[in-house]
């Protein structure tokens, strides 16, 4: 069963990745393979993060956007890349680096691309989506978003994704999904994809104006303000209603 699960979750780039199975099917599969069994990530494409795409995250910067070093509010989508060494699956332990005892959890919806998308219109954008998944865009906490070091976002394991990709057809309102973050079973953050500066279709259109998205690529819609922090020993669970529940435990660097 686990073998089948891995095969179905980790599909090579270029193949259709969405499953027509409902979320309950994945949850049943996940529970059937044992509580601590780790998953492979559901895609091997490039993962793009979007910055300041939650209205409250942008509002948290306030007038700072007009002061140095930013000097003006953002115009185009602000993106970054989570490299392949960061991508892990559901239930894979995430190592907390010795120099950063507390990590920031970035709960967000991952839009998984199904067909090569270049210069697509907002009206057509969702046709290029295979499905949706849950992403935890983990960072070493840092205040400035001017020119952050790769050390803050590109550590090994800093981008859990999964458990699975849920087909687009099964997520009729991706711009109205509730997201909650639990740390050791206590809910510490609630947000929604209803609070986006650029809703999903507009984000895809604006990004593909200059950069092609390929099948298997994941575009996250951005994290809310004040991401909760977690430490080694704690278990972080991100739930997106209708998409899935992604759980990862933080472990200290000594245990690897």
């Amino acid at each position, binding site marked *: 069963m686990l073998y089948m699960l891995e095969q179905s979750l980790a599909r090579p780039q270029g193949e259709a990745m969405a499953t027509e199975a409902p979320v309950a099917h994945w949850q049943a599969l996940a529970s059937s393979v044992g509580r601590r069994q780790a998953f492979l990530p559901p895609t091997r494409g*490039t993962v*793009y993060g979007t*910055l*300041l795409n939650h209205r409250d995250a942008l509002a948290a910067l306030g007038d700072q956007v007009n002061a*140095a*070093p*930013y*000097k*003006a509010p*953002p*115009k*185009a*989508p*602000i*993106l*970054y*890349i989570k*490299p*392949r*060494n*960061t991508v892990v699956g559901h239930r894979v332990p995430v190592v907390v*680096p010795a120099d950063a005892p507390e990590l920031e959890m970035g709960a967000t919806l991952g839009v998984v691309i199904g067909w090569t998308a*270049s*210069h697509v219109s907002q009206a057509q954008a969702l046709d290029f989506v295979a499905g949706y998944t849950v992403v935890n865009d983990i960072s070493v906490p840092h205040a400035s*978003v*001017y*020119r*952050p*070091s*790769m*050390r803050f976002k*590109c*550590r*090994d394991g800093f981008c859990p994704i999964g458990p699975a990709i849920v087909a687009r057809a099964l997520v009729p309102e991706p711009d109205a999904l509730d997201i909650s973050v639990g740390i050791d079973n206590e809910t510490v953050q609630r947000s929604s994809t209803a609070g986006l500066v650029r809703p999903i279709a507009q984000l895809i259109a604006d990004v593909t104006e*200059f*950069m*092609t*998205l*390929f099948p298997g*690529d994941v575009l996250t819609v951005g994290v809310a303000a004040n991401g909760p922090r977690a430490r080694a020993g704690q278990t972080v669970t991100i739930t997106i209603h209708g998409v899935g529940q992604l759980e990862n435990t933080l472990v200290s660097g000594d245990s690897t």
Partner: protein
Amino acid sequence: MKRARVAYGGAIHDATEHPAGLRLADGRVLAEDAVVWLPPLELGTVIALGLNYADHVKELSKELTVTSKDEPLAFLKSPGALIGHRGQTRRPADVTFMHYECELAVVIGRSAKNVRREEAMACVAGYCVANDYAIRDYLENYYRPNLRVKNRDTCTVLGPWLVDAADVPDPHHLALRTLVNGELAQQGNTSDMIADIPALIEYLSSFMTLAAGDVILTGTPDGVVNVNVGDEVITEIDGIGRLLNTIVGDATFGR
């Protein structure tokens, strides 16, 4: 050995250098302009360095708000942004300052985590020439350099060859230059890098695992000027290769 990946006759091929141009793995010998050149390897993570030559730092100093550097300024590209030798790069009609950057590309050959400087060069598989275009009109001060400037389709050129590390005894003493329409526009030497190759591998592997197929673009010296539609841009590094690229306009891309 110099290796390439090309499209020819309905398939993608590995190829090697040949006096007449290149030789496909199946034995066919072809002229350089008879094939479509792809980036010379299947790309993993692509890391680029900003401001890694002292003279280029000086050149851009007016727009820098951070001057002290306590760590290399590294950022990421996606594999989909890269194209090969003899390719076309799009210059949008609305921009005023789009410039090339000739860079030595270091290709990682094996997994590397917490590699010390002394052991770093053993992780290098080989080298390529890169031309890493930037469009400064699109620069914004969030997560600099933002992807709209530095990760545009067709704006990173890599090739023509992947040259085995064994054939490059001193990668820190290579002359590099850019010619625009045959005129020398940029020149420098890899000996002027601020963070050299072992320093970059030591730094990057201190917080992330590098893997075979990852590429580090090591930065560019000064001498970046605007290019226009129709320009032929050659970035060249002695012993590594001569990478040709042509600037085309929006019409080519149906825009």
